[in-house]
């Protein structure tokens, strides 16, 4: 990067007021920002008429099974939007204006994803108020692994807020190393574990289900648009992890420790896999492994082969998530 020097203190102060550089604008994070700006879509412009027509014709138990997934996504999108605030704090504290710019699109997109679910639930199954949605929410911490080997934790609604508070506390210390380490944990959990591995098969399950049923095209369209946005979110996080690890290679174990804390959630089957008989259960476990190995490659860490074996082990078949109540 070109260094500009000046002998006048007031000029040096003024230099700090400008964050744009040619190098920043050529960078990968800035490219993601540009892509996000160019790819803005509006859930209110979707045509929901076919979904409204299809809904009553789908058997009740299938509708309820599908709502178990869509309601969880609806809550999840709101949770991830709320938990983006510490990411902005960390980007500011670390002096990364390119991260801050990109995160502004990230946050808008997460809010818009939540809005898509609001639009779809209000128009199609006609549920929107919290007391209408809550009965369908699948509580993951109620899941029991019959082998007793894995503990199931609520990663989105307990893990993410806890890790987010760690980032906020770290920012208060004003110590760069403390902030980077807390941010590394948070990025690993949020972008690599939750968005990058755990959720990816669930998107595919909904898309495959809509295809198998030849129904609900607006739901399918929404999931496809969300996934496209998520690709930028995930690779922003994994590239930031790689950057932090490049300066602190001894922190690689921190990444594995985060995955280990929520290992059971990844090893178990996603709740919906057993609710739709048409779906091939193993396909999504195999897909999970591909996503995990992709994330490890992007972060520059060595994949945990034991975790991969556990994901693929057909004897480990407990289902994450049970119906509330």
């Amino acid at each position, binding site marked *: 990067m070109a260094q500009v020097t000046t002998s006048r203190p007031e000029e040096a102060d003024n230099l700090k007021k400008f964050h744009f550089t040619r190098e920043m604008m050529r960078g990968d994070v800035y490219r993601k920002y540009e892509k996000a700006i160019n790819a803005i879509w509006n859930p209110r412009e979707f045509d929901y008429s076919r979904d409204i027509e299809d809904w009553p014709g789908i058997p009740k138990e299938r509708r309820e099974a599908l709502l178990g997934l869509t309601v969880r996504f609806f809550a999840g999108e709101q949770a991830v939007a709320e938990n983006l605030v510490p990411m902005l704090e960390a980007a500011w504290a670390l002096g990364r204006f390119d991260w801050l710019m990109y995160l502004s699109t990230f946050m808008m997109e997460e809010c818009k994803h939540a809005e898509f679910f609001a639009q779809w639930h209000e128009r199609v199954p006609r549920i929107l108020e919290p007391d209408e949605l809550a009965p369908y929410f699948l509580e993951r911490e109620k899941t029991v692994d019959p082998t007793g080997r894995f503990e199931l934790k609520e990663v989105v609604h307990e893990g993410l807020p806890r890790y987010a508070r760690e980032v906020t506390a770290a920012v208060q210390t004003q110590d760069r190393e403390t902030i980077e380490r807390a941010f590394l944990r948070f990025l690993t959990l949020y972008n690599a574990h939750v968005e990058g591995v755990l959720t990816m098969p669930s998107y595919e399950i909904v898309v495959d289900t809509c295809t198998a049923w030849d129904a609900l095209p607006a739901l399918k369209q929404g999931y496809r648009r969300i996934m496209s946005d998520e*690709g930028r979110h995930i*690779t922003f996080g994994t590239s930031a992890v790689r950057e932090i690890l490049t300066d602190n290679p001894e922190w690689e174990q921190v990444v594995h420790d985060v995955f280990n804390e929520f290992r059971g959630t990844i090893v178990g089957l996603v709740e919906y896999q057993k609710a739709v008989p048409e779906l*091939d259960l193993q*396909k999504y476990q195999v897909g999970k492994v591909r996503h995990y190995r*992709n994330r490890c*490659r992007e972060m520059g860490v060595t994949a945990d082969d034991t975790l*991969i074996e556990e994901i693929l082990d057909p004897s480990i078949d407990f289902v994450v998530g049970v119906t509330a109540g």
Partner: protein
Amino acid sequence: MTVTKRKQFVCLAAGCDQVIEADGDEELIEAVQAHVAEAHDSFELDEFILAGATEVDSEP
């Protein structure tokens, strides 16, 4: 001899490790997506392909 750069992506699906090469990003995205659809009945997002791609030398 002219050495040109090509883009390479290794498919990390379990038991696959297929190496896919193309002249540029767009061609690579198309080739990887075709491979993942055909071999794994799935899809890979554009950003994942770009993030996992490397540049390799090629002798035309």
